[in-house]
């Protein structure tokens, strides 16, 4: 069994972004824009998630005058993992929301 990922807030943001459209391919640039993460933070996270086979990657077919872009999407394992992580964070998020409400 693979060691569990240590999930930084940034990795959680990336997984959450993938969960918005779970079966869609996404470009690094789009994820960066949606999460506000700079490429220096984002690409190492994508690499680690891909190494753990939580993400799969593919190259977009090249179009004339534009370099091909790398795309990512959740694997079935990745989708399960991201959903479990979101569920496990739900009680904590609810507690934090309750505390915020006073």
């Amino acid at each position: 069994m693979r060691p569990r990922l240590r999930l930084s807030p940034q990795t959680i943001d990336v997984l959450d972004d993938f969960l918005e459209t779970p079966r869609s391919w996404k470009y690094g640039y789009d994820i960066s824009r949606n999460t506000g993460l700079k490429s220096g933070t984002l690409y190492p996270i994508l690499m680690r998630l891909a190494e753990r086979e939580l993400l799969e990657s593919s190259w977009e077919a090249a179009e004339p005058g534009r370099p091909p872009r790398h795309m990512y999407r959740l694997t079935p394992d990745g989708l399960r993992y991201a959903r479990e992580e979101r569920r496990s964070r739900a009680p904590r998020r609810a507690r934090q929301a309750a505390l915020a409400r006073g």
Partner: protein
Amino acid sequence: MNESLRSELVGTSGLALAAAAALVLTILRAPAPSQSDARRRTAALFVAGLMIYALHFLEEYATRFYERFPPVLGLSPWPAGFFIVFNLSWLLVWVLAAPGLRAGYRVAYFPVWFFAIAMMGNGVAHPLLSVYARGYFPGLITSPLAGIVGFWLWSRLRAITESAHGKTRTTSSSPNQ
């Protein structure tokens, strides 16, 4: 600047530094006279080094170094086409430099110095990348060979060149030479 171009420029900036160092060495160290045997041996070592480089490139290509390395620097992966063209272009320059090195043309020393520095860099960088990745990193298996041949070639280049500054002084003090 688009993301791909930025990744290609920043990701290869280490090699740009190696090229700058090679240029400085080419300027500072002139081919030593009467070293034709040593030059022939160095050229043979260089050609052997090119074969090791080709092997190293094949390992990197087969294991998708071009997708794995840029993210380590926080950059987007390189398209395979860029990686192939970049490496094969340099291979062509190096192949053309081999007869020049053998003949003692100073301009041919620049790509050979660059090759030696780049190969030493490979010998150090890939094991470090593997430590970072906590496992195999593309290019690791052939990188020690690359490092050894790079260091060996560096030593040979130092032996068949001499300080251009020293040479100028010698020449000016011995006009009959």
